[in-house]
Structure formats: structure tokens, C-alpha cells
């Protein structure tokens, strides 16, 4: 047998094969049981010839494997190309759920305050007049004490008008320092309109420590407003009045629609009212047994619906309460 001739014939046959089947044919022709090379191998008697022929067989086999893999891959690719799909068709419909925008905003608020080291509280919604009004130093003639403004269950029990009662409970139960935010539903006796709903969510913060200042309140509120509305918003503070804080202020955020130039959203003032705030009134400290000379603090409250409306440009607050999937699935 002419080993060299066999090798060159085999390799060129493998090289010439155009399909995996042709490679297989060549493999049978040169390495099959009846082929010349295996026959010769079986007849070999001396070690040197055996090694030479075995090496030859290996080279042919490797060449066939390589060619087969090359052609196999090309054939697979060709077949896969025929399985091509319209990638612009929709995929399987998997269930996709949605967190309500109020919850999304609630989490943002929680995270902003967790970052500042505040605890988060969610406390009872039905309160006594003592905790909802008296201990918060609402004067006897304050409009909120009227059943026109507030939902009373009877003379002593109300649906809370703000989450502040939770703060009174906390201040009674533990020693300062206290840094907390209460989040939950509150109730006001307002007719349902595009901008008002008798049930809404508030987040109210309270910081009580030694040496807390009005400047700390301004800094905290600016941080939170920017966390909610973006770092570039201007924040303005106006004097105001609340029974349970003194001095009292209200934060405004520059209008995100017009950037402060004045538009319909901000009623042409350039500012959007965000809620109420102030330094804890000494009467409130006295009502919970704390010395107002030793402790000071600030409190603030804002609405989650309002925040969600401003973030997402939702014109009608009722959309947040109707459970309409066409609305919910946007968020």
C-alpha cells in the first residue's frame, strides 16, 4: 500500500466533500472495514509500520472530524435560518402587575426619610378628640373641630384629620430623640372634586431632639422635596399658622411645568404648595410631659396623592381611587 498516495487521496476526498454525508462516505472509503488502510493495519506485523499507519489513520480521521464539524455547523446554520420568525410579533403574554402610584410615592418618601435616619410609622386612623385635637393644641374655635370639616363618629371620636396623633402617642411612649414619619390615610369632610377627595394619604414627619432649629426644618424639607421632585427644584418657605407648631411655615416647590415662569398648573404663581410645617409648639411638649426649654423639634405634613399627581401629571385625584385598570396599568 502506498501510504502517501492513500493519505493524499483521502485528504483531498475529505476536502472535496460538500456535505456531512459525503464526508461520511469518504470516511467509509478510506477508514471503513474493507478499506485499504484498515486492511493494511490488520496485516501489519512490525511496530514501526504500525505506528506510521496508525498515525496516518488518526490524521485522516481528524481531518474527517474537522470537515464534518465545519460542514455540520454550516448545515445547522442553514436549517436555523429557515426557522426564522417574525421578531416583530408579540411575545407570550405573561401577567404583569403594577404598584399603585400612591404606593410608589410612599416608598420614595419612606426611602428619603430612612436615608435621613427616620423611622416609619403607620398607626390607627380612628382617634379620640383628645389625640386628634386637644393634645395638638387646636384652640376650641378652630374650624377643624367643626363637624362641617371633620368626620366625627360621636363627640369624642373622629376619623383622624392628620397623622399627627401618631406623633403624640410616640412622644408619650418614649424619650426623645425621636425622628419619625407617619404615613397613612386621613379624612376631611370635603366634597369629591377633581382636586379634593375626603380620604387621602399624608406623610407627616417629626424630629424632636436638643437644639433643633427652623433652619434644620428648612434644610430637611428641601432635601425631601428634591428627593421627590428632582434636584433642580427651588424650594420656598412662607409663614403660616397651625395650632401645633410655632413658628409655622409652608413649603412651596418651584413649578415643574413652567419652571417658575407661571402657568395654569401653578395658578400663575410659579410655585406649588406642598403642605404644612413648623417648629413643635411648646404647648404640645407640655401636653406630652416634655420640657420645652430642654427639647425642640419640627413637624411637617404633605399629601401622597398630591405628590403622585404632580410627579405623574394626573389632573383628577379621583383617578387614584377608582381602581380602573386602564389607569393603573400605566404605572
Amino acid at each position, binding site marked *: 500500500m502506498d501510504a502517501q498516495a492513500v493519505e493524499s487521496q483521502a485528504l483531498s476526498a475529505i476536502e472535496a466533500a460538500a456535505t456531512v454525508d459525503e464526508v461520511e462516505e469518504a470516511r467509509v472509503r478510506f477508514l471503513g472495514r474493507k478499506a485499504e488502510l484498515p486492511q493494511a493495519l490488520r496485516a501489519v506485523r512490525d511496530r514501526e509500520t504500525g505506528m506510521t499507519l496508525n498515525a496516518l489513520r488518526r490524521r485522516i480521521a481528524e481531518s474527517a472530524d474537522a470537515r464534518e464539524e465545519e460542514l455540520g455547523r454550516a448545515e445547522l446554520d442553514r436549517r436555523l435560518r429557515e426557522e426564522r420568525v417574525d421578531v416583530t410579533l408579540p411575545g407570550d403574554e405573561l401577567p404583569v402587575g403594577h*404598584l399603585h402610584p400612591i404606593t410608589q410615592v410612599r416608598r420614595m418618601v419612606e426611602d428619603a426619610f430612612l436615608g435621613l435616619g427616620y423611622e416609619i410609622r403607620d398607626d390607627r386612623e380612628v382617634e379620640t378628640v383628645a389625640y386628634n385635637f386637644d393634645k395638638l393644641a387646636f384652640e376650641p374655635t378652630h374650624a377643624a373641630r367643626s363637624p362641617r370639616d371633620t368626620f366625627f363618629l360621636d363627640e369624642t371620636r373622629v376619623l383622624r384629620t392628620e397623622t399627627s396623633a401618631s406623633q403624640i402617642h410616640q412622644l408619650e411612649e418614649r424619650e426623645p430623640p425621636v425622628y419619625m414619619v407617619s404615613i397613612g390615610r386621613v379624612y376631611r369632610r370635603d366634597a369629591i372634586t377633581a382636586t379634593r377627595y375626603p380620604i387621602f394619604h399624608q406623610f407627616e414627619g417629626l424630629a424632636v431632639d436638643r437644639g433643633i432649629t427652623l433652619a434644620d426644618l428648612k*434644610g430637611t424639607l428641601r432635601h425631601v422635596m428634591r428627593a421627590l421632585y428632582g434636584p433642580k427644584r427651588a424650594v420656598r418657605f412662607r409663614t403660616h399658622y397651625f395650632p401645633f407648631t410655632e413658628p409655622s411655615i409652608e413649603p412651596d416647590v418651584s413649578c415643574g411645568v413652567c419652571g417658575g415662569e407661571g402657568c395654569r398648573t401653578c395658578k400663575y404663581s410659579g410655585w406649588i404648595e406642598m403642605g404644612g410645617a413648623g417648629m413643635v409648639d411648646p404647648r404640645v411638649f407640655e401636653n406630652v410631659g416634655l420640657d420645652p426649654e430642654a427639647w425642640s423639634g419640627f413637624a411637617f405634613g404633605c399629601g401622597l396623592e398630591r405628590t403622585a399627581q404632580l410627579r405623574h401629571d394626573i389632573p383628577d385625584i379621583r383617578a387614584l381611587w377608582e381602581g380602573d385598570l386602564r389607569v393603573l396599568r400605566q404605572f
Partner: protein
Amino acid sequence: MLVPVSWLRDYVAVEMPLAELGERLSVATGVVAAIEARGVSDELGNLDLFRVGKVLEAAKHPNADRLQLCKVDLGEAEARQIVCGAWNFGAGATVAVALPGAVLPNGLELDERTVRGETSNGMILSEEEVQLSSDHAGIMVLPELAPGTPLADVLPLADHVLDIEVTGNRPDLLSIYGVAREIAALYELELAPPPGIDPPPDADEPLSIAIDDLAGCPRYVGRLFRDVTVCASPVWLRARLLAAGMRPISNVVDITNYAMLALGNPLHAFDWATLRGGRIVVRRAEAGETLRTLDGVDRKLAPTDLMIADGERSVALAAIMGGEETEIGEATTDVLLEAANFEPFGIFRTSERLRLRTEGSNRWEKGVDPHLAGQAAKLATQLLVEVAGARWVGEADVHAELPERPSIPYRPERGDAAIGLSTPPAEQYGLLARLGFDRDGERVLAPTWRARDVTREIDVVEEVARFRLEDVPFTLPTRRAMFGTLSRAQQLRRRLEDALVGLGFSETYTPSLRPAGTDSGQWSLPEPISVELTVLRTLLLPSLVEAARRNVDAGAERIALFEIARVYLAGDALPDEHVRVAGIVEGGFGRVRGIVEAVYRALKAEPSFERGEDERFHPGKTARTPAGLVGELHPATLEGTWGAFELDLAPLFAVSQEPVTFEDVVSFPLVRQDIAVAVAEEVEAGALVAAVREAAGPELREARVFDVYRGEQLGSGTKSVAIRLAFQSPERTLSDDDVAPIRERIVGALAERFGAEIRS
């Protein structure tokens, strides 16, 4: 509070741009919600086109019976011809004229035009056309003035009105003078003395005024006037009231309103002739008494209501509204003016009880300075004499001891510490002085008009703070001990929300108040705003059922909703509030049970189900976990096949194994075996699995029903339940010999407890 700037300028020189004033007041005093231009626009010389004219000739238009053709002298070289539709004037009258080019408040731009063949070179104006009143019965006839005089010099043609939101602690700002005082303090401007100078009295008739209840009415100034001519107020007075948002009625009533707006002390005027016994008594209402108030409503009075009475009966609901019988009318000639002071809480109580709130009650509720009544009486007296031709013939001023100015210890450094900004003491005392405070050594004396609001050091600090609010820096508390982490319940709640969202649910919020009726043990509102929002809910699910129904009606598909909120159950002093999660989803029992299992798994908890029952649910497809109900809804609750659940969060979170303890499930292999047993139809799978777990011991890793088979060879009333078992030990590889006795224990337990026959 609507504050016309022209009126403000009587008391303080407002020369700064109004936008800047608005910003300053918004920050330091009260929000200026709007600055509205009223009347004739003063832009681009428009105001100059409004002039005083003298009618030289006025005759019927040659081609129109209802029109007059006038020649009007406007101080120009030649008189102008003007066509006019009014007939309440003639030659010689002084009138107001708008020239061609003028723009009226309603936006109409005048030009020279021809009316029925005659040129009209301007317009003779009515009060309504320049927004001085709603009177369009005829044109304005002015007093004698030089023709050509700019109209704006003699009439309040153009004005701006500040709409200031006054907070409840500042009744002093419910007056033009009070706002002027605030502006003077903010801008360091001079403030005119308060308006009102007594004219000399005309006589000294005795006037009997008695106050039975000095606590309710600390002061009552009564003044008697005779020969009063009741008629419409002059245009300047009407214009001011209109600009300040009040409707002019008659000169006497307008004067009381004017004085209230100017100074903040509500006044009342009685027709003296209708008062019986010639005297005034301030007292509480008598049992069974009634009064018909000015609005024509008969009011049943309570003994707590403070009344103004004459010698025989009540004639006014003190501080809230006068009586109809004693009101000023056209025939009135003698007037009793009331300038009183009333204590806030009693007035608030009566106004609440009667649901009657007025301009007057609104001020009294907030507390009006008792020192103010005298000044208000002076202003009203001056105007009654000047405007209504009245003779002032008598006065009585009955009062308790008027309160003294609060004396408050004040430490300027305490102010700095509370504000977080240093303001030199001299500057602090300076701004306090401009607001009417006086320094008295270590104390300050608050002005009487702030006596209710400023009584403590912190109240004085607020005065400094609001003036310097914009300068206060932005800092953060220097925290010493605080830590912010979500509680375990808050962390699990977030996980629960996320799990449900992952399962395809959309979160919804529904009202906590429900219509009255269906649920028991509710807390209901005695005064709801609507029948839909009457009772605090004891279940979340009905709200979700309604939301699902609305979504069906809206054509939504793959509906899956959840809500996390409170329910309000019977409790002792207050409702027992529980936070719950409820969900509703299209699909049957298997789907909703799978969802609840997934929720438990997300919370690292093992659910346990037993048969449950509830009228809202399918009687055969309802389960109960320790946290609440899971099942298919009864078709009567909602048409179609729906799964629903309502679970209490507290028991749900209580079984959470978070944080999970690691188990070695890797080092040694799991041995899987299936077991199938034939049991009676009524044996529940849950009970079988529980028995398997109990019998197997710690090596049992998993026991899950994977098939239930019913067939002829089993016979009716029997089913085959196939359970997949997996055994594993964290210490060694389990052999078949290890598993065999466990399996035997399981088979034995099932046979003993359920009569189960092993099938494989």
C-alpha cells in the same frame, strides 16, 4: 381678604411693584393668591382717554327716537358730538366720557363711528361700563368739574386688588388698615393713623344699654343718629365695597360694612324706631325664643346663643346676623349703631349650631380686639354724618375692664437659637416695634390687636422668624441617636406588594368608607357626605368586587386587583383596626389558591388550608388559612369565575420564617419516591399530607400531591391520591434501607387514620 390697593394707599405709601409686594407678603404674612386688575386698564395711556365732560347740548337724535345727540365739552378746542342711549341727564350735566381708542374693562375698544347717520365721537359712560357698580340704569352724572379733567383723578377707575389668604391667628389682617400696618412694618414705611375722627355730637340724648353677660360681650358701644337719609351710597364708597368683594346695599349698611373692612370690627345698624322700650340688652336667649334673621329664616334659639335684645325681645343674633324686623329700610330715619365686641367661642358655638357663617361671625370667631370698637364707631359716625346727613345725638359705651397688653418675657438669643439664624437684638426690637410691640426691659408688650395670638416667647420668636424667613439657612439636625430602618412588618409588606405585582396583580386604592347596610358591627358616621361613604368598612373584598365589576364593564381583560388597607372591627373605645391584603382575580379555585401559596412562599411561610365558609364565596370552593379566606367567589357575588382572598397581615407575617435558616440540601442526594393510596372521596388531600409529614419525621424533605385519580376499578366513593415524597439527610446518603421504615410508618399512619389502601 380682598384688599384694593387704592384703599390701602389711604394708610400707607404703596409704591413698590405689586408683584414684589405680593411675594414679600406671601412669605412673611399670608399668601397673596392673586393680584387682580379691576376697572379700566392703565396700560399704554388708556386711562388718559377717560375724561370729565360737560354736556352743552342734548336733544333727540334726528333719526332715532331712543337716542340722544349731545355736544360735549371735553376741554378741547371744539366740543365733540356723541350719541347716547340714556335719558337721565340733559344739557349742563357733568358726565364721564371715554374717547375713541379707549379700551373698556369688558375689552371693547371704542372708535369714532356713525350711529343712524350721525357721527359719535366717544361714549358717555355708566357706572357699570367702568366696573364701578352693577348699575346700568343710566349714565353717571358727576358733580360740577372742569371739562377735560382726567376721570381717574375724580373716580377710582383703575385699581388692583390683592387677594390675601389670612390665617386663623391673624384676624387683625381681616382689615385694610391691618394689612397696611403689616406692609408699613415690612417696608419700614410710615403708617397713617387709623381712619375715623368723631365729628362734634349734635345732642346728648340718653341711651340705655345693658350687658347681662360681660363674658360673652365685653364691650358694647351704641350710638344714636337722627335725620338719616337712607339712599344709595356715593360712587366712591360703592366702588370700594365692590372691589373688596361686598355688595353695596344702602348708605347706612354700606357704612357699617366699610368700617368693618377698613378696621376689622364688624358693626350693625338698627332702625331705632323699631326697637321697643328704647333700649338695648345683651343677654343669652330665653327658652323657646325665636328670631327671624335678615336672610328671612326663622331661627330657633338655644339658651347658649348670645342675643341683642330691646326692651321686649331679641332683635339680633349677636355677632352673626341682625333680625329682619329691625333692619334698616328706605323709611328709616333714626339709626342705632352697634360697635361691640364679642367673645369668640360662644359665637363659634352658635354659628356651628345654626350652620350660619357670615363676614361678621368669621371675624368674631377668630377674636377681635376689644379696643377696636371705639375706633370703628368713630369711622362709622364720621361717614354717617358726612355721607348720610345724619345727626349724632347720643352715645353709650358699656364695657368690662378691657384686657391689658400681654407682657411677655423675651430673650433675643432664644429667638436666634430657635430659628438657627442670628439677628442682632436691636434689629429684632426694631421690627417688633414696627409691628406695634414695645420693649419693656427683659419683656415685650404685645399690641392689643395681637393679644390672642402673641402671648408667649415663642410667639414673639415667630414674628422675628417670619420677617427673616428667606435669610434662614438650610441645615440638617446634628443627629446623635437615630437610625432609620424599615420594621419587619414594613419589609414584609413591601415583599408582599412586590410578590403580587410579580403575579400580575395591579394594586388599587378604594375608599375606607362604604354604603350603610350589608356588614355588621360597623362604625358609622352620623353626618356622612354621601350615602356611598357612610360606614367604616369591615372587609376589603366588597370594594374590590365593585372595582372588578367596573373593569369588566370597561372591557378590561385578565383582571387581577389587590389592595392593602385597614378594616375597622368592633372594639372597645375605638375600632379594632387590622391591616389586610385582599385580591380578586379571574379564574377558579386552583388559580387563587396557587396565588396565595405563592404569596406565602414569597413571605417564606408555609400555608395551611382547611375548608372554609362564607356567604360571598362558592360553598364548595372556599378555604381558610389562619390569616383569612381564599376561594372562588359565589357567582351571585360576581358573575363569572373569580378567585378572591382576604388575609390579615399580622397572622400572615407571624408565620414568616424570614430570616430563613440554611439547610444542607447539596452535600447528600435526595431520594425520591412516589406513593399512591386509595381513600374515601371525602378525605381531603391536606389531611393526608399533614399525616404524612407527622409520620415521616425530619428526613422527609417534601410531600406534595401530584395526582388525584378516580376510575372504575376503584369503585365509586373512592379516589386515588398520589403523593410525591423526597427524603434527604444533611449528614449522610440515605439508602433504600434507610427510607423503607419511614415509608412503612407513612403507609401505616395513612391506613390507620384514613383507612387508606396502598396502591403503589
